[in-house]
């Protein structure tokens, strides 16, 4: 490694046995086959599970703004729009949107419970706090089946123990 800068063999590279002219020719050929931006564009992780056909006049691809973190920060700052964060989280799984939505929820002191796959937020200061858990009243975002139709809603759970080893 610390020999001459050039190469020990006359005119060729010890590493490959090629000479400088050959290397330059190959580089020239590679110059005409540069990697293109699309070669590294990741196939969108997000594959709609049940893609629905919509009129052509509807946008057929995601608006670029949904990959802009500032857009999600705006949603996060508007308490009414929290449902949008939950929508992205549950309906756009494994996507950058899910990542951004989770980040905003966390900023608003929501905490993801790994066992229930549910976001909880303290409703009042917990009555008990130990190294392993806290217990108190929590708001949580839930989907419930009921005769007046299914729906996502926020409910309150009193006297709930949130064990920290379930905290993501």
């Amino acid at each position, binding site marked *: 490694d610390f020999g001459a800068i050039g190469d020990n063999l006359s005119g060729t590279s010890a590493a490959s046995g090629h000479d400088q002219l050959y290397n330059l020719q190959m580089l020239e050929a590679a110059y005409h086959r*540069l*990697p293109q*931006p699309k070669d*590294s*564009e*990741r196939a*969108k*992780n997000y594959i709609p599970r049940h893609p629905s056909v919509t009129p052509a006049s509807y946008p057929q691809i995601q608006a670029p703004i949904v*990959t802009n973190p500032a857009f999600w920060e705006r949603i996060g700052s508007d308490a009414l729009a929290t449902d949008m964060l939950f929508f992205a*989280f549950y309906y756009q*799984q*494994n*996507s*950058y949107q*899910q*990542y951004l939505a*989770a980040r905003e929820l966390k900023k608003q002191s929501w905490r*993801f419970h*790994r066992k229930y*796959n549910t976001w909880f937020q303290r409703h009042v200061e917990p009555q008990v706090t130990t190294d392993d858990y806290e217990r108190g009243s929590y708001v949580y975002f839930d989907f419930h089946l009921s005769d007046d139709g299914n729906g996502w809603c926020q409910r309150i759970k009193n006297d709930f123990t949130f064990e920290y080893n379930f905290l*993501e």
Partner: protein
Amino acid sequence: LGMDLTSLGLDLNSQDNLYKTFGSPWSNEPAKGDPDFHNPACYL
């Protein structure tokens, strides 16, 4: 071989790390597509 390095499309005064948006050695454009993010397995 010398050149004005600010013409290479990198904001050397940026407070944030450059590698996050470093797209390619061949272009001034920032990285396209979703940046590097990581969703924990329990989110899926």
